[in-house]
């Protein structure tokens, strides 16, 4: 146990903001390319899978005294400020903010470049203790591409995606469970940091709000937002021919007056067709 406690990590979580999943989204064309209708007005949340990775990072840091968690977040400064009011109460971290678009239509390669630069700019970062966390996909672009590109830019060759569990051993090595096809997990053992983990849902519930953690975090959140570097993507080669909502609208038949027997027979026939 003593050996386990002597291991400490520097955990950098990459997580942007996305529209609240309950919002209706509609694509629009803007001078800068495709966007969402009333994008700046839509309530935002920390990207769901990135949130899970933040909770896992905080939990891992708690188990290994001397560890520290940073949250590197790329998004419009005003929106980040709103989202941090909630997120900062969930887990202890130091914010590194990058002021730029969090649109799902931005290019993953450029986002990765901005995130990698922000990570490399963290003072005193020790690569031999570095774990880079994030969601395995965003709820905006949903490509599952950015984290691997960040890892490559940082020279990290041990990467895992769809992670649901990390178990650290006394020697600093760790076992990782990644989602693979058919409801299975792949188990791998990595010799230790540095490594990159793109998280799926993990195993932890969402932490309850903790005002003490919130107050502690907010001491660093405001200065981080003030000194957030602006991110203006260079023109890229990505061209959108169209963005459209699915056209398929179903005519739902509502069956209210049938017995369980009748419904079961109807369903059986449907299943066996």
């Amino acid at each position, binding site marked *: 146990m003593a050996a386990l406690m002597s291991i400490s990590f520097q955990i950098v979580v990459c997580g942007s903001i996305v529209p609240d999943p309950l919002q209706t989204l509609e694509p629009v064309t803007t001078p800068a390319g495709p966007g969402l209708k009333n994008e700046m007005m839509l309530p935002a949340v920390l990207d769901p899978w990135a949130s899970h990775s933040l909770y896992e990072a905080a939990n891992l840091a708690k188990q290994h005294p001397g560890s520290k968690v940073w949250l590197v977040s790329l998004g419009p400064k005003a929106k980040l400020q709103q989202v941090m009011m909630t997120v900062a109460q969930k887990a202890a971290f130091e914010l590194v903010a990058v002021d730029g678009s969090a649109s799902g239509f931005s290019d993953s390669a450029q986002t990765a470049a901005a995130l990698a630069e922000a990570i490399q700019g963290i003072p005193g970062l020790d690569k031999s203790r570095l774990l880079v966390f994030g969601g395995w996909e965003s709820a905006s672009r949903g490509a599952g591409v950015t984290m691997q590109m960040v890892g490559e830019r940082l020279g990290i060759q041990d990467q895992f995606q769809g992670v649901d569990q990390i178990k650290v051993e006394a020697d600093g090595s760790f076992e990782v469970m990644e989602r693979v096809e058919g409801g299975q997990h792949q188990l791998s053992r990595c010799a230790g940091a540095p490594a990159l983990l793109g998280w799926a849902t993990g195993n932890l519930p969402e932490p309850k709000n903790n005002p003490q953690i919130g107050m502690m975090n907010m001491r660093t959140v405001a200065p981080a937002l003030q000194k957030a570097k602006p991110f203006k993507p260079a023109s890229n080669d990505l061209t959108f021919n169209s963005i459209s909502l699915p056209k398929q609208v179903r005519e*739902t038949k509502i069956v209210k007056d049938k017995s369980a027997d009748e419904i079961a027979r109807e369903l059986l026939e449907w299943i066996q067709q």
Partner: protein
Amino acid sequence: MEKILFLAYTQEDGLLPSAALEALSAALSLKSVLGSAELVVGLVGGAVQSAADQIAGCGASRVLGVTGPEFAVSRYSTDAVAAAAICKVAGATLVIAPGTSRWQRVLPGVAQRLGGVADTHLTQVEGADGSLKVTRWYYRQRMEGVIQRQQRPWFLLVDPGSQPAYAKPGATAVVEPVAVELSPAQMRTDFKGCRGAGQDVQTIRPEAKLLFVAGAGWTKKQADGQPHVKDAEGLILNFLKASRASLGSSKSLVDLGGEGEAVLSFLTHLNQIGQTGSTPRHAKGLSTCCHGEEPHAVGWRFINERRAINLDANCGWARGKADVLYVADAFAVVSKLNALLTAG
């Protein structure tokens, strides 16, 4: 002129997974519309001859292979070295690959390593007038985009289940070995195997015709004022056994476990469908005790025929998300359905 590389890995039996055969169909279709494009096959695995023979009739000008025990398993570092080496030897401008967990993990990193770009979850790859357009979903299947890129190499990962599988007869292929050297830094991770997600029973069946979704209503108080979670478990497991359906769940049901409430013991986050879950492809889907709210229903994008059972006639499924909504007690209906399935 574009040079198309179809890039795949072999399974334990030495053959290609079905998702790879689908990606090969996409590559062939692209080759035909791009006219003068050349097709090269790249294979990674413990051994690749059987896989090369399997697709020998695809018309590739070359078949390149990286083989060895280190490449038999799924690992970022070794897969990246192998894929990058094949891409370089092939001189690929377009890399078409199956969007499986193994390739999805590594190929975006390889694109970065080679100064290229990557797009994933592609549902359509089409060419017109010598240019290439690809289709993919944004915002968790809420809107569909058609995009183009000029940068090369462009890695295109095709979503499994979105294309017909290549099925021409095999023959004997000549594989050109591509030499790859591994350093100790690339062997820091050991593959330890795969296992089910802590379930006693296999409930996730990607090949199933039917998806059965259980919502949080199964664990709520019923007409007698009591929850009947054990009864729900029995009904659902019996249904899965009799119908061979795949089991999905809503986020709210899976999350109840983390909050200490009684839940269906065989459910894990891997069953979760929707915003923070999966988006499976099945011909039919039956939702039970689930309200069909948008964050869940976005996971149903690729379910063709949809039916739902819910006590609330105004639930989300009624608003154009299901073909048929049965306003009924799922406990009663599934019990009767199980009896019919067992009798049949």
